[in-house]
């Protein structure tokens, strides 16, 4: 039952939002639905911990500990994002950017978006996984163009075109996996279904030539949604144009849900091809993403784009962690997904507030944030520290563990190269952050208080990151369980 309810709750709230005209309470209901998803995710984790996976709807849905963990990540980030939704909509309506009608559309699409991501991680079938990730593209295209400005339409056009091409490649890859599954027995056709369990069961016998091509297409295809080089160019545009809660959700979880698909396919490819070939591919895209992020961050002028490029960086780190591929590395990858999701959504949500107050997204025009808005500036500053991997925040632990696992797998040269990129990125973000937070205050008005309903969830998010960074306690066994789903 847990699986079905996890999908039905956000779906019903979405239908409610479609049926009723926009009102604040719809926003709060959305937050309630996200909180429910989070609670259900925790329940799923407890149910699947070291036990057999749960299946539902005649095997259509399947929750193992990896899926359950992803449900928790989606729950946490969407809770943060939906808590800000009523305020974002009010600000936009006051500024005349949005009408009640469009606010209603926005709420419906947000819920559809969340439901699609949940379906992606709970689907038992790799084909259904593909369909739901494609469906997220359609929901988010409208969310990116929510403001109806030329810029946001341009961003969503690029997003839809590039992601449709990417996702078509991923479909091609999925079809090739299906073809390999059909011909496992050599001459006669096997019954094939693309079902995760049955694909994994026959993974050792999948034709290596077909699987090599399939994996390359899948990395390129899902890599588009993850934001990995070379198909990343939609990401900074879409993230900078979407409303803040949408950017938070896209950067915080959508990228990692697509990465989750790659983790599953990597497990299949590892079994069919041995670890060497998948590792090479992941290292290439991972390092390329890090280098691109480093070069684009140095001279970045827009703080939302800065956060977007930092997402490309962190996705690159995930790819390198997956390349190492040991159980420890994958556990660290999953912790990184959670930590990055929370940190990045806190940053995007606070950057939405900064944008609202300053009226610009240019780094150079925001300065003295700490003296003008101490609470907001503090949240943004600590968020940046967390993003840069300072202890006690969890990104420190996960980056450190991934690097260790990479060295253990003999990839010390990859660690060395990525450290160079990380040092450049560190310098760049620290410089931009200093300009925004310290600098001379533009106005001499006294400090402005930050609304408590904005600050509280964001501070809680940062504290959460610090807590899981200090004590991996509730997570450790969970992460190792989840990692074992995709590592033998």
């Amino acid at each position, binding site marked *: 039952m847990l699986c079905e309810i996890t999908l039905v709750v956000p779906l019903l709230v979405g239908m409610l939002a479609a049926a009723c005209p926009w009102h604040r309470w719809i926003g709060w209901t959305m937050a309630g639905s996200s909180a429910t998803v989070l609670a259900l995710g925790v329940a799923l984790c407890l149910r699947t911990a070291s036990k057999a996976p749960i299946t539902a709807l005649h095997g259509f849905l399947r929750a193992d500990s990896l899926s359950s963990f992803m449900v928790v990540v989606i729950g946490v980030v969407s809770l943060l994002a939906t808590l800000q939704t009523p305020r974002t909509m009010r600000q936009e309506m006051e500024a005349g950017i949005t009408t009640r009608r469009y606010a209603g559309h926005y709420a419906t699409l947000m819920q559809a978006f969340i439901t699609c991501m949940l379906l992606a991680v709970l689907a038992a*079938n790799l*084909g*259904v996984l*593909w*369909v739901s990730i*494609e*469906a997220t593209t*359609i929901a988010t*295209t*409208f969310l990116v*163009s929510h403001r*109806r400005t*030329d*810029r946001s*339409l*341009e*961003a*969503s*056009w*690029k997003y*839809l*075109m590039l992601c*449709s*091409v990417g*996702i*078509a490649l991923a*479909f*091609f890859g*999925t*079809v*090739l996996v*299906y*073809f*390999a599954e*059909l*011909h496992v027995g050599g001459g006669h056709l096997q019954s*094939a*279904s*693309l079902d995760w369990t049955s694909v994994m069961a026959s993974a050792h016998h999948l*034709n290596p*030539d*077909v699987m090599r*091509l399939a994996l390359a297409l899948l990395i390129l295809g899902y890599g588009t949604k993850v934001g990995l080089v070379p198909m990343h160019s939609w990401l*900074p*545009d879409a993230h*900078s*144009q979407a409303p803040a809660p949408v950017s938070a959700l896209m950067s915080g979880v959508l990228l990692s849900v697509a990465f989750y698909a790659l983790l599953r396919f990597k497990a299949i490819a590892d079994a069919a091809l041995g670890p060497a070939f998948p590792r090479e591919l992941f290292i290439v895209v991972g390092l390329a993403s890090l280098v691109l992020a480093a070069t*684009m961050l140095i*001279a*970045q*002028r827009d703080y939302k*784009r800065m956060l977007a490029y930092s997402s490309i960086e962190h996705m690159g780190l995930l790819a390198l962690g997956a390349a190492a591929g040991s159980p420890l590395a994958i556990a660290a990858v999953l912790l990184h997904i959670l930590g990055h999701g929370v940190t990045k959504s806190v940053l995007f949500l606070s950057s939405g507030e900064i944008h609202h107050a300053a009226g610009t997204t240019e780094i150079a025009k925001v300065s003295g944030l700490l003296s003008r808005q101490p609470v907001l500036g503090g949240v943004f500053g600590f968020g940046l520290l967390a993003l840069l991997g300072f202890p006690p925040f969890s990104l420190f632990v996960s980056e450190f563990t991934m690097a260790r696992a990479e060295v253990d797998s003999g990839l010390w040269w990859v660690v060395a190269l990525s450290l160079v990129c990380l040092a450049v990125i560190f310098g760049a973000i620290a410089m931009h952050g200093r300009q925004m937070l310290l600098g001379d205050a533009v106005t001499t008005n006294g400090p402005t208080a930050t609304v408590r309903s904005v600050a509280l969830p964001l501070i809680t998010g940062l504290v959460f990151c610090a807590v899981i960074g200090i004590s991996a306690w509730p997570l450790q066994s969970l992460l190792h369980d989840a990692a074992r789903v995709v590592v033998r």
Partner: protein
Amino acid sequence: MNAATYTGALELAAGAVLVSAVMTLWRRQVRTIVTMLSLQGISLAAVALILAAHEHDGALALTGLLVLIVKGVIVPGLLRRIARLDPRSRETTPLVNVPASLVFAAVLIVLSYVVSARVTSVAPSVATRMVPIGVATVLVGYFMLVTRRRAVSKVVGLILVDNGIALVTFLLTSGVPLIVELGSSLDVLLVVVVLQFLVINMGEQLRRSELDQMKELHD
């Protein structure tokens, strides 16, 4: 259906998919291009239906009908509406001119035979022998996507990619599970609907100007 008729019919239908793809590179009038696309959708459906008749596969026949409706009728219809919004909808200045494009298409077709050889050798059959045709359609689609500047031409490129992948799917596996096929067909439809929405909402200037002049967003 005897073997010779089956082979002949399949070759004809699959060949028509590629020919219509190359025709879209050749012609510049958007209305003609859309007609070619509709022809391609119908040929693609024919491939599915021929395979379904040969293998007595009900689900595949259903997929074929779905493809016929979505890719043969609805999607081209929507594209005609997009084209009508912009009266000067001729691909005026592609990045690569038409004769060069055609030469390039020929190169891509040869390339696709080389690429597909390793996959098709896993299960040689009448159907898998034609997989390079599908791969070639995908590559031609990409080429169009990269070198054409008009919004409509780019959408056409995307649909070519999609049709090519669908053709490969039919030929290699006689269709993926129905639910996946349904999802993918409906997605194509939705993508075109969304693109139509975007083109309509784009400011007059943005729509008229060529897409590589979209320079608002950059670093």
